[in-house]
């Protein structure tokens, strides 16, 4: 027991001296270890984004300071972002459109304006898929059938209404002059459950991330009717975009990173420099490839503008969907 106490004391001393060593001096930002907040449990999409960022930035020696990933799951990002709000510029958090929709759906007091936009990093695209033996051969046929009787067609979505999977179809319906609040959704617990439901024929169509259905489409187990990208996706040239189907819609499911309120211009410039270099590295490109993501880099200035546009779009979609009166 005494030995254990001695070892812990020794460790404590190391930690204390280690910390003071980093914090001393008046060097420029960053002055100490950097923290990336993944507002989700380990293993989820946000966690993997944060850990990939940490790994590429460290391996490519772009950031010399230690980077730690911390998980703050809960409330669809709420817990993690609240935590970010209380920290200084050495803490950044991963985000996605939930940072906009949580507030628009009345689930959170936090708005995107309370944070400092740093960058938009990558995007996935949304897909509309039907069973392989479905009578719908194209997205227009599908929309036409919904127009006739929206209650007849069950659309699977997960894990909750108001997410990108849901809102991308809301936008498509609205462009096709269908009242989106009339659509008939079945809400599953997650993306995987949605695909199982489709394969088992328990729903007529699903809206989900492209990566959830890409392999199934290639294996001929289901059919993707349309993707939300601006141009056909590599490896899926047979699948048309919504635009090619005559519906004016490009819907990215983006991921980015943001900082606490009131970061200085120098601090923002630091990340613009580092992240613009990082997205050019081979290792980052490999990360994108493995995850079926597409490079979607926007620097802090562009991201600020992008967030404003996205906010206005989501505001309209959430209202049209009938989720908020």
């Amino acid at each position, binding site marked *: 027991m005494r030995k254990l106490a001695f070892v812990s004391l020794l460790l404590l001393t190391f930690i204390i001296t280690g910390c003071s060593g980093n914090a001393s001096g008046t060097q420029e930002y960053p002055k100490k270890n950097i923290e990336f907040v993944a507002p989700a*449990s*380990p*293993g*989820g*999409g946000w*966690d*993997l984004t944060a*850990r*990939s960022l940490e*790994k590429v930035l460290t391996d490519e020696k772009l950031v010399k300071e230690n980077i730690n990933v*911390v*998980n*703050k*799951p*809960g*409330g*669809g990002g*709420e*817990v993690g972002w*609240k935590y970010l709000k209380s920290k200084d510029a050495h803490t950044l958090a991963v985000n996605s459109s939930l940072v906009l929709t949580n507030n628009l*759906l009345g*689930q*959170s007091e936090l708005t995107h304006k309370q944070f400092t936009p740093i960058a938009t990093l990558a995007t996935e695209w949304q897909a509309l898929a039907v069973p392989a033996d479905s009578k719908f051969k194209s997205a227009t046929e599908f929309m036409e059938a919904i127009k006739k009787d929206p*209650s007849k067609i*069950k659309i699977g979505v*997960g*894990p*909750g*209404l*108001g997410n990108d999977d849901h809102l991308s179809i809301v936008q498509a319906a609205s462009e096709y002059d269908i009242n989106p609040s009339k659509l008939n959704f*079945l*809400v*599953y*617990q*997650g993306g*995987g*459950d949605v*695909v*199982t*439901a489709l*394969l*088992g*024929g*328990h*729903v007529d169509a699903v809206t989900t991330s492209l990566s*959830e259905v890409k*392999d*199934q489409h*290639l*294996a001929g*187990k289901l059919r993707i009717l349309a993707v939300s990208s601006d141009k056909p996706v590599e490896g899926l040239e047979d699948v048309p975009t919504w635009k090619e189907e005559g519906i004016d819609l490009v819907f990215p499911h983006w991921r980015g990173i943001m900082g606490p309120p009131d970061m200085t211009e120098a601090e923002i410039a630091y990340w613009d420099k580092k992240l613009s270099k990082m997205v050019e590295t081979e290792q980052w490109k*490999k*990360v994108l*490839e*493995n*995850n079926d993501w597409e490079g979607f880099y926007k620097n802090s200035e562009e991201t600020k503008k992008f967030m404003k546009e996205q906010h206005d779009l989501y505001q309209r979609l959430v209202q049209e969907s009938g*989720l908020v009166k």
Partner: protein
Amino acid sequence: MDISSFLDGLSIAVQPINILWIIVGGFLGTIVGMLPGLGPATAVAVLIPVTFGMNPVSAIILMAAIYYGAMYGGSRSSILLNTPGDGSAIAATFDGYPMAKKGQAGEALAISAVASFIGGLIAVVGFIFLAEPLANFALKFGPAEYFLLMLLTLSAIVALSIGKMVKGFLAMMVGLALSTVGIDTQTGVYRFTMDIPHLSEGIDFLIVIIGVYAIGEVLYNFLNIDKQKKEKKKVGKVWFTKEQWKRSKWPILRSGPLGFIIGVLPGAGGSIASMISYTSEKQISKRTEEFGEGAVEGLAAPESSNNAASVGAMIPLLTMGIPGSGTTAVMLGALIMLGLRPGPLLFEQQPETAWALINSMFIGNLALVIINIALVGLLVKILDTPAKVLYPIIVLLAFIGTYTLSYSVIDFFLLLIFGLFGLMMKVMDIPIAPLVLALIVGTDMEQNFRMAVLSSNGSLGVFFSSGVSIGLVILTVLSLCYPLIVKLAKRKKNMSEDEDQVYKSS
């Protein structure tokens, strides 16, 4: 099955480095499975940064070994301390703990390791021959079928609490009520979250397990800590008797395939599998009255079942890219990071990877049964540990385990609340398992019911519309009525015997 891919896979699995990962993973899994709150999902998640530098095949082998290793470990604390490490180890408390109390801790630990081993082997063989048809069978499960499967589980729980049916039912209702906390998936409405964002994802059933079992047990023992005698407890032998084996043999062989099939269904998992195995064994047993008092087959059956379920859960992951449980979901995320995408194309494009994993499960189960039997002698020493040392350690582990679930101190308050709740239930002699199991299946059960009714435009006929659903309805009715039928049959037999006697005596 393709023999050459099978052999390719075998040759990858027996590479020394992969055997090392199997043993490391199995050992780690056993340890985290034993500790309350630290489950395989946490262990796999914590290892994600480590797997970054690894060969993807070794990574999946390691993660799978942790997963089924935890199934072996989960029951250790159920047997020794009456505190299950995970939902799928709850059924092991029913007879495992009474066995330990009777002085058969060693036998209980040994038989559960062997039962897990056999269940695992049955499932791996099933995997090799039946992966494809079973994956297709699982797709037949729509919302209606899932609802009925969960209803069957709950009816099994109620049927279990014979003698205290009302108390068991009460505990189940509390569990169902607790499961409604959080965002309602169908509508996005926040229910009973009291404006605490942390509660929006509901109450994690693991916190409730740790609270009512571990903390509750400690508090309960604290009440009568001075009354405990200082005598050395009997721990039994480290191997089971021939008689015990004879009683367990068939329950183990029956529960393996059952657990395997339930494991294949995405979302169902080990908790439901072990529960259904336990109840069905209890109902067909000739020694029903011994169940709950330390019947060896009551421990062996769920142990075989939950390990088979963990192998079955790999089928939807590998053949469809769909995670069937919390742990496989974390595994899927980690594998995608490594550039390995499980799904319908895996067996076509990288058959050697898939077969290497399947073969590693063979080796893994063999390694685990050896590890676990070797640990029996060490583990029974826990029972010799004085209460004043053991209980503080359990409390410490409970708090650590709770913190790793979502890194939040709010969970500590929940843990304490449920600890007191568990104490209250123990004092009032209310069974705990119905509460926890109802909480585990409650959310899915409700959502699936509503989805089923939504998709049939409000008609309840959807619950009788397929062969699977009708079968489940019949099973549910049977499991509820079986005890009554048995009673009636006995009474009739007694009556006719009485008549015989009357006849003879006259």
